[in-house]
């Protein structure tokens, strides 16, 4: 069984390389191999990790739901934002328990950080970044961006000429999440650790202080939640069955109206 899968994977990789996703005519039928195993594994591990990080993070935030700028900030200082108490259906654990929220958060922080590192190394080696996510100057020309916005509003997500390729808004959002948002979460998370601040004193310099890091951590997760909502909404609008299959098996069917 394992061998069969491995063979199939090998075969599909070869086919993928031979066909190149931007020439559907050469692809086997209407299915293209879109996501490699390492991409799919990271995607689902990361989905699990980020949901746990958000739930446990909100549980931690409940201990002191005020945010400050600068090095310090506590009850007698002026917060820039006072947040509500997050309800139990959003937090891990459901009932307020700071110690257990921290156990979840700080274990999965390791999964998030080392998972991202492994994915980045693999995606440089297997050329996923260069092939699928590289953004050229022409891609971000205002006219091109505007055309893609209009295409999105019309629920057209694939370039008929290159249906397997990511569109520019997709590339920009993936690049932002992989290279900016998740690294920002890791950096600001580390800056909140008194031990790491001693090990790497530059952490509180680049973040502007521990309380600024805490604020940026919250702003960062807000943007990640925004990404999640849009990401899931677009999967549903595009074709959830096809998109889910491609992220589970790797195989994606070229939409009929775009062949």
């Amino acid at each position: 069984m394992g061998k069969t899968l491995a063979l199939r994977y090998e075969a599909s990789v070869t086919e993928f390389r031979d066909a190149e996703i931007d020439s559907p005519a050469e692809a086997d039928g209407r299915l293209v191999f879109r996501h490699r195993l390492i991409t799919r594994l990271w995607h689902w591990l990361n989905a699990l990790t980020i949901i746990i990080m958000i739930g446990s993070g909100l549980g931690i935030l409940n201990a002191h739901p005020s945010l400050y700028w600068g090095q310090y900030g506590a009850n007698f200082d002026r917060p820039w934002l006072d947040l509500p108490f997050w309800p139990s259906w959003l937090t891990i654990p459901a009932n307020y328990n700071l110690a257990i929220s921290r156990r979840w958060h700080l274990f999965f922080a390791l999964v998030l950080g080392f998972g991202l590192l492994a994915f980045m190394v693999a995606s440089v080696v297997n050329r996923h970044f260069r092939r699928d996510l590289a953004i050229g100057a022409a891609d971000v020309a205002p006219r091109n961006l505007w055309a893609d916005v209009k295409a999105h509003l019309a629920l057209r997500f694939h370039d008929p000429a290159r249906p397997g390729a990511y569109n520019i808004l997709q590339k920009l959002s993936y690049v932002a999440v992989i290279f900016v948002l998740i690294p920002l979460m890791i950096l600001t998370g580390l800056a909140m650790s008194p031990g790491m601040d001693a090990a790497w004193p530059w952490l509180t310099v680049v973040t502007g202080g521990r309380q600024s890091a805490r604020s940026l951590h919250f702003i960062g997760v807000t943007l990640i939640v925004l990404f999640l909502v849009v990401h899931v909404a677009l999967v549903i609008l595009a074709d959830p069955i096809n998109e889910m299959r491609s992220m589970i098996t790797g195989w994606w069917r070229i939409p009929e109206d775009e062949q």
Partner: protein
Amino acid sequence: MSRLVTRRGLIAAGTLGAGTLLAGCDRVIQVPAARRILFSGEDIQRGLQRTLMGRDALAREFDASDLSPVFRSNGTANPDTPAYNALVAGKFADYRLEVGGLVARPLSLSLDSLWRLPARTQITRHDCVEGWSAIGQWHGPMLGTVLKAAGLRTGARYIVFHCADFIAGRPYYESIDLFDAFHPQTILALAMNGAPLTVPHGAPVRLRVERQLGYKHAKYVMRIEAVASLVGIGAGKGGFWEDRGNYDWYAGI
């Protein structure tokens, strides 16, 4: 595509899945093996941090202009036991810091003798596990000076701080290992912001362990004990909050 899998079905399953995941976490942590894995995060974090920081990396020290205008007190604001109240009434003239356990020369130090030891003054950031931070100035002898005077015996691995306060009827205590005990910024603070410690901030002696979170910084320290193992002290997890609430013993994060 199979008619069994519909768009609506997938959306419902996805929503249910995310909800189940959050609720499932509370079930998962009841499983002893899962709990052990999750709690092992503490050891991994400690190992990584200690490797990256090395023995003598200092917590950042600030200027007087960076001090928090108000440094809030947290935890016990006053032990309020007859014994402690008597010490306060006598301006701590009868206070003795006992240093014992696995030491060559047990000590009993008056507050005066602690004040006469060479001292360090440091302006550092205090980080509460709850998320807030306050910057204060602390002054007192290095813990290492006291431990060297007592002379640790072989086998001593942890330093336990027994405190005068009780929370919910149980005595507060904390512990650190020798890595932090001999760190130059680990001091027995006698003064804060230029004045002797007040009762809400742990008078007359409060531990400062600057590379860890606030609950490690035991207030109202009465007795220091060098031990080989934390088993048998409290519930054996090395501190009041560690015993009572599953808080990490290593609180560098």
